[in-house]
């Protein structure tokens, strides 16, 4: 859970990135506490990967600052990189190496001692379910196993901050659940940033979600908070036998309804009434229908889900 008492692991201040005329990241400000799993959610091309590349010191920002464990990631670049484990989008790996050999190589660059490295590799094989694949060539692995090797690579040095860019892309549903559980387990001690464009992924694992669109944060909060925020408005869907114009005028008069849209097809018409109140006004709507002697085939109440928040915030 978001716990403001625990120390800040990552702080992003006024981050901007321009690629020529394209303003990919616009004045991004956020922080992540130790032991938090932050979901970084946004449609493709929203600037997620660019932000991650800036945090991991792959590219510099145009302006702004990134502090990891209160160290600037430009001034103390090498030191900061030691604290980060990074799985880039699509898990780029050396195809001609074997799995064990690759992890050995990464561990050496991470500066692990030979004995420590041996035990870490075995641990990673266990955790990521790679034991049977130790002597396979990476280029011949399936997408799911490649993703696991990428994860093992990111975790081999037991980093404080784990950055995962679309870690479950290309996995089957069982593997997705496995990876989710793995991330949840890691999130108990470590700090995890989980980038995705798929909402259920993020809402199932993360303690806090940032939704970004076109390089800016458009919403942030726990999954519950974001859902609450959305349920401020709800919709009533009706199908009735009535005259289009009178449905429009009569329904608009019901207290709490802010907008009515009606589409007629023959004798029947379907109406969508948007309510701006949290209270259930289904009864009032039904009374209105009865008072006007309309035949009612359907009356349905839809509250906004997290999905709707995401769609509302990231579309257009």
């Amino acid at each position, binding site marked *: 859970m978001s716990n403001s008492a625990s120390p800040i692991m990552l702080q992003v201040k006024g981050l901007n990135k321009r690629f020529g005329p394209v303003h990919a990241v616009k004045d991004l400000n956020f922080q992540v506490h130790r032991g938090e799993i932050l979901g970084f959610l946004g449609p493709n091309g929203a600037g997620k990967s660019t932000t991650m590349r800036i945090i991991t010191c792959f590219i510099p920002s145009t302006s702004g600052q990134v502090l990891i464990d209160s160290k600037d990631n430009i001034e103390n670049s090498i030191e900061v990189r030691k604290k980060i484990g990074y799985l880039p989008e699509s898990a780029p790996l050396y195809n*001609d190496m074997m799995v064990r*050999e690759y992890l050995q*190589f990464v561990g*050496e*660059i991470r500066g692990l001692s030979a004995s420590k490295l041996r035990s870490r590799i075995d641990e990673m094989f266990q955790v990521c379910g790679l034991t049977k694949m130790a002597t396979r060539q990476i280029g011949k692995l399936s997408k799911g196993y490649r993703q696991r090797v990428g994860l093992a*690579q990111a975790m081999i040095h037991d980093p404080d901050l784990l950055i995962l860019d679309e870690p479950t892309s290309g996995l089957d549903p069982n593997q997705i659940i496995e990876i989710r559980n793995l991330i949840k387990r890691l999130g108990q001690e470590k700090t995890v940033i989980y980038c995705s464009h798929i909402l259920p992924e993020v809402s199932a694992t993360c303690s806090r979600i940032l939704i970004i669109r076109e390089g800016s944060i458009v919403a942030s909060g726990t999954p519950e908070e974001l859902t609450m925020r959305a349920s401020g408005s709800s919709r009533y869907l009706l199908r009735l036998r009535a005259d289009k114009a009178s449905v429009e005028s009569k329904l608009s008069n019901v207290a709490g309804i802010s907008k009515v849209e009606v589409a007629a097809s023959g004798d029947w018409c379907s109406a969508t009434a948007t309510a701006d109140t949290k209270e259930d006004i289904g009864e009032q709507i039904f009374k209105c229908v009865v008072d006007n002697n309309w035949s009612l085939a359907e009356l349905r109440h839809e509250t906004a889900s997290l999905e709707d928040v995401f769609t509302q915030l990231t579309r257009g």
Partner: protein
Amino acid sequence: MNNITAIFKKEFKAYFLSPIAYVFITVYLVVTNFLFFQGFFIVNEADMRSYFSILPWIFLIFIPAVTMRIWAEEKKLKTMELLLTWPISDLEVVIGKFLASLGFLAAVILLSISVPITIAVLGNPDPGPIVGGYLGTLLMGGAYLAIGLWISSLTENQIVAFILGVVVTFVLFMIGNPFVTMVAPSWAVPTLTYLGLGSHFDSIGRGVLDSRDIVYYCSVIGFFLFLNILSLESRKWE
């Protein structure tokens, strides 16, 4: 230092993981041996001068083939994004990769040991010029490798890296060649001869290791490795 060793080990092994390496080693050995022994019995002298004199030409094709993969593949597979976010400096990566390619070249050159052995069996060669010649070959090869490495960092296409590598080393080789210096204005001749990749190898081929030639090849290596680092940094300039 540990980082350079890790990169070196990984890159050096990578050469032998691909079958192309063995094809190249074979072709290299067959071609150089053939060209050398063709004239060897006619000249009938127990030395390796003519062997070393063909190497600058062979390297024009051979070295770009050795280096084309090194960065182009990292870019194509996007493994560069991981590599350069690990706690390792750009300089360490470049040096590690360069040393690995130099190690591969040294291994190939070592395999041509059959040539001096044959000569020693047939005649009585002076070992000094031969050892000097081999060291010079490694130096010159290093210069070609540094150029090839830099060119590989400019593209994600290995074929483009190979062709550009051949062209650039060929131009740098030719500017010091009599072919060009004969027609060049006389004031430019000393500079062109100095800059040419091949002209410094003439005395090495005779077995004379001149400090000026050593300085020249080391400067070329340093300059192109520096360009390589700049080309990695260029991702930050967009």
